[in-house]
């Protein structure tokens, strides 16, 4: 290493030490949270506490070491924040496990299988994929080569639940695939693949899409021929809504596509056109599809349906109200009163037991994660990286907004998982892949330029090849 590069490296530290310290804090919070759940519910110290917290700590440490080696200059906040969210999810899932077990005991019903160990296993699998992404994808720009493959694969995954035999309908929505004893939600993987596709596609096509052919109300509008991609995205989203009855995923894809289109073309007209398409789609869905219609009706007046279709949202609101400002305290609420407490409604459980304070902390954690992602998008120098980082961050943001807004009755309720928190493997793995991709891009964005001429630095060999 030359003297110059060492000086520069010193001026722009990798901040890996800060990352490790924050990971330690996240882990410690998890230990304390688990202990509090155990003590407050009267279960005592969880029997396998040191095994589980040991596994979580080891997984976090593995990720940190891999980042230190493979993405040394990556943003130091992304990993600890995502880890803290995952740990918080594990604590809440354990909390709800305890509640379910205690309820079963009271009703002399058979003990349910705890979910927390399954979730921990999924976390381990997520870490494997996280490591794989960082090791295999040495430069995110290489992903651009597979743009159309990703697009095709993404679409395929999206329609997979409709396939006979393997497709499964759960709670009215057809978004599961079951192969053997193993089931997953392909939409979670599809959201990453389609973001990759959108980024690659829009980088290439953005010039023609940005061409202004007509002006209306002071805004430039694209020519009709270029509306094609927008129209296809719209039809696919509607298709997901109609055939898979998955309102959340449908919303997520369309919103993601519109915002990425806007970023790529820098034309506000796309946002307006997109909004019009959205409005038409929403109106059609409201008119013709009962499940959408019901969601809106219940949203407007959940109290009238408190015992039927509004039961979930009403229970969720009661949970939040019970939490108040400081929360009932971990282990002292009634989180399993809300159906699907550890998946769609895990935020309601957090709102009840950790209160408004906890909710603010939680949403700010997401805000930090998303802000870091957007900052990566702004600072990386290649357009593909910019679009990809922005797209991935927006996916997270939209998903958080749609589900948290849904369970708090800000918007109609749509089934989506809460990133990192919800019980469910597909979602956890997918979101960790997103973190890995963001780390990969941010490593590129924050890497000192000078290293490009350090021939002996293994990290820079990748750069040189491009």
């Amino acid at each position, binding site marked *: 290493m030359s003297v110059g590069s060492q000086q520069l490296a010193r001026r722009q530290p990798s901040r890996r030490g800060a990352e490790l310290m924050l990971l330690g804090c996240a882990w410690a919070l998890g230990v304390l949270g688990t202990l509090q759940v155990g*003590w407050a519910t009267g279960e005592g110290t969880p029997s396998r506490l040191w095994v589980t917290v040991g596994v979580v700590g080891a997984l976090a440490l593995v990720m940190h070491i891999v980042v230190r080696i493979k993405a040394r200059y990556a943003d130091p906040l992304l990993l600890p924040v995502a880890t803290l969210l995952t740990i918080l999810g594990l604590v809440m899932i354990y909390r709800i496990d305890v509640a379910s077990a205690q309820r079963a005991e009271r009703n002399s019903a058979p003990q349910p299988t705890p979910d927390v160990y399954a979730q921990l296993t999924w976390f381990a699998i997520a870490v494997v994929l996280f490591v794989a992404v960082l090791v295999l994808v040495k430069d995110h720009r290489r992903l651009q080569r597979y743009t159309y493959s990703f697009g095709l694969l993404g679409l395929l995954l999206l329609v997979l639940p409709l396939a006979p035999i393997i497709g499964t309908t759960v709670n009215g929505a057809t978004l599961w695939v079951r192969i053997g004893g193993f089931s997953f939600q392909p939409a979670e993987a599809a959201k990453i693949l389609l973001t990759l596709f959108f980024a690659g596609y829009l980088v290439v096509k953005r010039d023609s899409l940005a061409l202004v052919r007509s002006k209306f109300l002071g805004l430039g509008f694209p020519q009709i021929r270029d509306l094609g991609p927008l129209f296809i995205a719209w039809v696919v989203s509607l298709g997901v809504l109609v055939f898979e009855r998955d309102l959340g995923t449908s919303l997520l894809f369309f919103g993601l596509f519109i915002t990425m289109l806007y970023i790529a073309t*820098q034309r506000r007209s796309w946002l307006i056109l997109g909004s019009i398409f959205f409005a038409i789609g929403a109106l059609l869905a409201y008119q013709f599809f009962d499940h959408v219609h019901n969601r809106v009706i219940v949203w407007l007046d959940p109290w009238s349906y408190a015992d039927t279709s509004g039961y979930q949202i009403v229970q969720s609101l009661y949970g939040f*109200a019970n939490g108040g400002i400081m929360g009932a305290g971990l*282990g002292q609420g009634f989180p399993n009163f809300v159906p699907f407490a550890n998946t769609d409604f895990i935020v309601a459980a957090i709102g009840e037991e950790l209160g408004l304070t906890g909710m*603010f902390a939680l*949403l700010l954690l997401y805000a930090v994660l998303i802000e870091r992602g*957007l900052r990566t998008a702004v600072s990386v120098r290649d*357009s593909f990286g910019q*679009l990809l980082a922005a797209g991935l961050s927006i996916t997270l943001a939209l998903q958080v*907004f749609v589900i948290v807004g849904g369970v708090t009755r800000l918007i109609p309720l749509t089934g989506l998982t809460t990133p990192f928190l919800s019980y469910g493997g597909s979602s956890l793995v997918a979101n960790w892949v997103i973190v890995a991709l963001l780390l990969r891009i941010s490593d590129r964005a924050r890497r000192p330029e000078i290293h490009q001429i350090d021939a002996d630095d293994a990290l820079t060999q990748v750069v040189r090849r491009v």
Partner: protein
Amino acid sequence: MMSRQIRRIGVVLALMLVALLVNITVIQVVLARDYRERPGNQRLLLAEYDRERGPILVGANPAARSVETGNTLRYLRTYDDGPLYAPITGFYSLIYGATGLERTENRVLTGKSDLFFVDRLSQLFAGRQPVGGAVTTTIDAAAQEAAFKGLKGKVGAVVAIEPATGRILASVQSPSFDPNLLTSQDPEAIRTYYEELKSDPAKPLLNRPIVALNPPGSTFKLVTAAAALASGLYTPDSILPGPASYRLPLSTSELNNWNRKECGPDGKVTLKQALAISCNTAFAWLGVQLGDEALRKQAELMGFDKGFQIPLKAATSRFPAELDEPQTALSAIGQFEVRATALQMAMVGAAIGNNGVTMQPYLVQEVRGPDLAILQTTDPIRYADAMTPLNAAQLTEMMVNVVENGTGSNAQISGVRVAGKTGTAETDNERPAVAWFVAFAPAQSPKVAVAVVIEESGATEISGNGLAAPIAREVMKAVLR
């Protein structure tokens, strides 16, 4: 480049975050109360039913306790003798709130009282639910049961007090209600029962012993007699005019004796004899001689015009202000606007029996922690020196004479000297007259003072001796046994 668009999207996302934060704040802060109290919300119910509420004890036995149910609502509030102790325990309903000791001692029963500071500290660290403490009442189960039995089928109340301390030994009402039915786990049944109680003209939800105000009638003659002795102008043997009817001063109205006869030969009667036969004309005359000021002062020394918290809130018994002479005459015999609770009249009896010292009445003897360690004991408090010991002794003898030779014969207990006074009071409205009996026993160093009030009984002959004295006797016997 695209940075500007990304930043703009960032701003939009920030606004969405603000929308989420504002919305959650509204739910968890502004609307939280409303949501918590919505009828369909079981959380409050469950939160309450989830923790073991401390018992309310009568002696060593719980009048109210939490029983583990084994279902989702983990604990059920149970009252083993619900209607018997209802005026003391009150009820604990998650729809209609709490009354009685369930309300006033809530912080102890839920374990949230500052008395449990040390326990709370350890609970805080462990994140455990506080466990409720126990409240021990001053109630004597035997006296309570005797009074309850005596009141059966009547509308009325009984209060018994230990004269030396002010401990309330019995507080009974009829009709009563069953608090079990208000704490059940079926909201619909609770509502139905509550509405039924509310529409009952006999008002079973009224805490009759300490809240129901009635004219005390002739039992108030005890206060008038005490004022007469206090004036120094009268002794039990003083001769008073006791004609068959008394023309109220400054008016044309006549006040009659209950039997429309003269109280003694030549319309003259001693103070002692006037009390024994409850001579209205003599006491009306006496009241006018003493003046309303003296009567009020004596009444207030015995607890009138003061709202006691025992800790249940008792109604304030009244001796009216600014009386002219005819009003004073009527007030001296417990009519006009004089109003008293059963608690108040029991206090009058107790003060006379306690050498003239009025004690503050109380219902809570001890507060115990979840581990049953005594955390707080109530000490008796002197309220006022209402009479000199000598006057008190003289009045006691006069009251013994009432029971042994006068109108209160039904209160006699063999082998025990009982002091008592009957009363029958006209109420303003169409309701039947109210029958009273105030007594204490044994006359020297009494263990119990009792007041019985019967508002309605269905009996055609209404008299304190006939309706109220037997109940008072049974209550006193129960305590003395």
